[in-house]
């Protein structure tokens, strides 16, 4: 899966959870009030379902959901991104 495609897909998945925000313009979703801990849970469930993975509970940490790059890095760990 191409990196850019995944970033666009990620931004779209995030918009489905919080349509009022543009996730391409923030580098700290949590500090900027765009995601809370329950949105993180919703996002993980969405990522699990979309990519056929199970993100480990120990990886569900705020630092992995700061921005599109950190989420992409997490998905790289699960081989969603080469």
């Amino acid at each position, binding site marked *: 899966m191409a990196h850019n495609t995944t970033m666009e897909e990620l931004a779209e998945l995030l918009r489905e959870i919080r349509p009022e925000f543009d996730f391409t313009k923030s580098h700290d979703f949590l500090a900027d009030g765009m995601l809370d801990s329950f949105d993180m*849970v*919703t996002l993980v469930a969405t990522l699990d379902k979309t990519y056929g993975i199970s993100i*480990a509970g120990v990886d569900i*940490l705020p630092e992995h959901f700061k921005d599109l790059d950190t989420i992409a890095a997490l998905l790289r760990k699960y081989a969603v991104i080469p």
Partner: protein
Amino acid sequence: MNFAFHGKRISGLLAIAPANESSFLDEMKNFDFPVNRSLKLKEVMGYDKHRLVQEGICVSDLAVYGMEYLFNRGVLDRDRIDALILVTQSPDHLMPPTSSIIQGRLNLQHDMFCVDINQGCAGFIVGLIEAFLLLEQPAIRQVVLVNADVLSRKTSPRDRNSYPLVGDAASITVVERSDDDCAIYANLKMDGTRREALMIPAGGMRMPATAATAVLQDVGDKNLRAKDHLCMDGSAVFNFVQVEVPPMIETLLAAAGVSMQSVDWFLFHQPNRFMLHKLADRMSIPYAKMPSNVVEQFGNSSGVTIPMVIASNLAARMLGEQFCACFAGFGVGLTWGSMLLSLGNMNFCELIDYPNESLQ
């Protein structure tokens, strides 16, 4: 800390849930969140229905109702109870102990040991350990363990992070000596440095309840709660569970010399479906061996959820079959505990409603 017990068993279990039921769909209007966002959370977490006590109903009401039910059915003899352990975070009063209130309301014998334990989601494990320890005494042959909480009364109805999950309930577990010498293994850990992850800040001596502590405040996440209410750091609690519980289960099974595959049921505390599925995935436990349906039907009733998961999923089978069961509880304190035991062939195992008309 590892524990091992011999010659003891759970001989009966009753769960009591208030008949009064509330649904997340009806409550969504109380939360300042878009409907779509709340519905997504409903799907992931298992928010659906939960059982809540009516105003004025206390822990002792649920416990006394359940005990009288057992006396009337003839499966528990009030004169044979040597100890009554109550595990709760929502006592009737600061004093006297609610276990004494239950003893008095039921006219139980004076020659007995009554004690309250302030514990939460690990409270079934802590209570069982206490019960097994008491049974080491020659004078104590039967212990009744009551787990009960009415924490909906301490949770803000405007807090979407907590209120939809919380349920009220009680359970009565009869623990006795057994001729079967099958070992019971337990493991318990505590970390008070993380005590603020789950707390009710006001109402004790440190911060007495006042008019000011009852004022709802926006704490920055669109949820409104007061200092009198249950406050949970959801991220911290989630991470604590995912980090601490799997190695605890590995330690427990290693101490018992039992493989993960040999366990018939993983009967864990029921915080929410998402958290349980993540634990199951991490430990490669089939979802079918780890029921996760209590929150969506009854809510999270703290230390009562393990009895509730047994009574709501396995009641009939607990009467005539025997299983290798692994319990795990984790929460306030922070405390995390687990137990491996042979479970079944009980004298009774049932889930009953506490009827609305019992309101007095």
